[in-house]
């Protein structure tokens, strides 16, 4: 079992070695990059915004209920919501959501190209398929995912704002006061660093599982599940490591 895991890790790094090569033509690379950024970013914006708004609403209500004490200042609710959303909920939970959404799309796309011999066709033409297909996806996700997380933070705080407005769990003044108090730019750096690493893991691991498929539709389904599970697992481990290093 351990040997098999080490073999897969080795295959993954060999795969990355093939991916990070000079593109055949820069013009085509940038065209593919723009296409991928559009597909990943615009395609995920709706689901990210819906989940972020509900996430922000729920965390606001839960925090307000937990901190019902005259000893704790009322602005603590806004402060806690902002800190949770910026430092953990949006970078990690939304990245996990993106693994399911974008990661499965990447695995399916590359996997079906492998199954239908389209990757072999590229190879016979003298094109490096790993670099041609995967590099634009990795770069696009590294650019797009942090932008999605910034949007997500905004929407989560907006969700909290709407909840306070509609339910009055704390006063609007206290909530805004909490959100704007003790702001550290380092928290944003930390969130974006995590997101960038998660984006790389998501796109490269899911591409790897799609690229190495041998067989047909059954293997494609298996690879899709494996890609999502492994990418999510690695993402959670790295979350712990980055948190330990940066905080």
């Amino acid at each position, binding site marked *: 079992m351990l040997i098999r895991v080490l073999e897969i890790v080795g295959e993954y790094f060999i795969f990355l070695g093939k991916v990070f090569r000079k593109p055949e033509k820069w013009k085509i690379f940038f065209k593919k990059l723009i296409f991928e950024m559009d597909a990943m970013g615009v395609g995920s914006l709706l689901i990210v915004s819906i989940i972020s708004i509900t996430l922000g609403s729920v965390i606001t209500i839960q925090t307000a209920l937990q901190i019902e004490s005259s000893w704790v200042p009322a602005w603590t609710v806004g402060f806690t919501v902002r800190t949770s959303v910026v430092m953990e909920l949006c970078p990690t939970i939304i990245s996990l959501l993106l693994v399911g959404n974008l990661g499965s799309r990447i695995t399916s796309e590359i996997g*079906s190209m492998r199954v239908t011999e*389209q990757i*072999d066709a590229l*190879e*016979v*033409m*003298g094109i490096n398929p790993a670099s041609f297909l995967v590099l634009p996806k990795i770069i696009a996700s590294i650019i797009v995912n942090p932008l999605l997380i910034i949007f997500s933070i905004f929407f989560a705080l907006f969700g909290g704002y709407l909840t306070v407005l509609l339910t009055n769990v704390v006063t609007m003044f206290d909530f805004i006061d909490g959100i704007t108090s003790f702001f550290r730019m380092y928290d944003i750096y930390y969130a974006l660093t995590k997101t960038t690493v998660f984006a790389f893991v998501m796109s490269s691991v899911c591409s790897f599982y799609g690229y190495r498929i041998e067989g047909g539709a059954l293997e494609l389904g298996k690879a899709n599940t494996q890609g999502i599970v492994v990418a999510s697992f690695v993402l959670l481990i790295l979350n712990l490591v980055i948190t330990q290093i940066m905080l």
Partner: protein
Amino acid sequence: MIEVNNVSKYFGNTRVLNNIKTSFEKGKVNLVIGRSGSGKTVLMKCLVGLLTPDEGNVLYDGRDFYDISDDEKKSIRTEMGMVFQGAALFDSMNIQENVMFPLNILKDMSKGEKLDRVNFCLERVDLINSNKLFPAELSGGMKKRAAIARAIACNPQYLFCDEPNSGLDPKTAMLIDELIVEITHDFGITTVVNTHDLNSVITIGEKIAFIYKGDLAWCGSKEEVLSTDNVLLNDFIYAQPLTQKIRHI
């Protein structure tokens, strides 16, 4: 000319190709025939470099494909065209874009030159009026013809076709065969076709290699294939009741 020198290939402990030694001649349609699972596709994949042989080598006009630098290998690959069994057209592109794809990546041509070349190739396979259709909108025969157009787009010196008429009706299969012969003779390229279609064997096979369980069991021409006394080949050729009747007549 492609020379195959003592090529062997193993999958685990199973020997799939056993010391294959043959050559595929320039300007001719060279057929590799054999039953399903005999090793035809593995041999073709070893020829184009999708699989690496465990023993032996493949020479492209004297250049050893497995003993050259990556750049030289890439240069030989730009001289290859391949038609896959399932056509392997890119789903996200229409037919015109599919045929233009290798030109976009591999050639430094103006847009007009590329368009002229694409139109020439599509006209050659009689698909000029279907150039805006996507692969999902094409019939099996049209897909194969589009794949042939893409394979010849870069003026290849070597054309490989893996079971080009499998899954097609006899009439369409004949059209594909005729197209392969015309292209081979018109452009003087070395064509290698994997098939188990008997009609192809007796109509287009200028040089035929018969593979049986990974061994090269027979080599000859379409004229010789019907009169050979090779038992294995006869078992393959006259396996169907129809061909058995023809043999007795």
